[in-house]
């Protein structure tokens, strides 16, 4: 079936699944899971080098010719920290993409939206392809789009919670509110959650823990690939409406007469 590519910052992607690089039991399993997921974008954190700098690099396990790196500003609590982190990532050679996170609270890891909007505006002006992690709030998403975001990434549920898409109605309203791609970021626990996001009409799904934390991360990565594809196909196919009562799918005409 014909489908368009996911376009972010003028770059086209066939896969609509974006995956993380954290929490895997080993880096070899991470590499295998990335392969199984079919993802073309992987997100990485920016952290201090351990000194002396002799340790192995995560990039020894990511083929940067194949995968687009998406550095994130995880752990940043102000716009200033997030902007500086994005600059560091770009200077390190990780490209212009940034998964922008400005966290408001350690317990919930919910975003600080005013700071997020400010950081989005600054980085978009500086030529970054800004992908902000935000609340499932249509107004926040509209403001992020106005600030220059390349897409909006509303959470389905708190980061790492695995609770799924807790407010599908808000996600629907966000899809009607913005014209940039909508990518659900955070909250996915299993394949059906990813499928639901895609069935709603989202342009993509980003996840880390759901894959890395699964008992068999590689198998879950494959499940997520299939779920994102299935959900996308179902959305494009156009589902039937929901009705309270039954509607027969066999013709009523031509029933034999069994009356005696």
């Amino acid at each position, binding site marked *: 079936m014909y489908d368009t590519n996911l376009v972010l910052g003028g770059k086209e992607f066939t896969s609509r699944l974006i*995956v*993380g*690089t*954290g*929490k*895997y039991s080993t*880096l070899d399993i*991470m590499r295998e899971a990335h392969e199984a997921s079919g993802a073309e974008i992987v*997100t*990485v*954190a*920016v*952290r*201090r*080098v351990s*000194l*002396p*700098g*002799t340790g192995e*690099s*995560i*990039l020894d396990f990511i083929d940067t010719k194949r995968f687009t*790196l998406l*550095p*994130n500003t*995880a*752990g940043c609590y102000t716009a200033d920290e997030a902007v*500086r982190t994005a*600059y*560091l*990532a770009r*200077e*390190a*050679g*990780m490209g212009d993409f940034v*998964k922008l*996170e400005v*966290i408001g609270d350690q317990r919930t*890891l919910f975003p600080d939206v005013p700071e997020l909007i400010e950081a989005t505006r600054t980085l978009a002006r500086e030529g970054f392809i800004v992908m902000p*992690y935000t609340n499932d709030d249509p107004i926040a998403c509209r403001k992020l789009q106005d600030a220059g975001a390349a897409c909006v990434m509303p959470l389905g549920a708190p*980061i*790492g919670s695995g609770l799924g898409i807790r407010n599908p109605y808000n996600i629907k309203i966000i899809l009607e509110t913005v014209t940039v791609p909508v990518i659900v*970021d*955070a909250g996915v626990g299993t394949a059906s959650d990813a499928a639901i996001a895609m069935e709603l009409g989202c342009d993509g799904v*980003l*996840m*880390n*823990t759901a894959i*890395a934390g699964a008992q068999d991360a590689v198998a879950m990565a494959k499940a997520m690939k299939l779920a994102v594809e299935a959900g996308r196909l179902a959305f494009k196919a156009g589902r039937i409406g929901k009705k309270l009562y039954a509607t027969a799918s066999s013709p009523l005409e031509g029933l034999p007469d069994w009356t005696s």
Partner: protein
Amino acid sequence: MSVQIVVNGKPMEVEPGTTVDGLLTLLNVKREYTAVAVNREVTPKSTYGSVTLSEGDKVEIVRPMGGGAS
């Protein structure tokens, strides 16, 4: 006289006139996919050889690490 600086949160002594490039060599840090900030400002790679570290400078050396979200 040596110059006292802080690298990734740890105090360190370097020779006067040490550049960012010299520090990275001293610490055996690969240049690829690494970035440096001195006193909160990003140091462009092209200036590693010319930026000299001064007393009290705070240096951050970062690279990509495994992570998904906060």
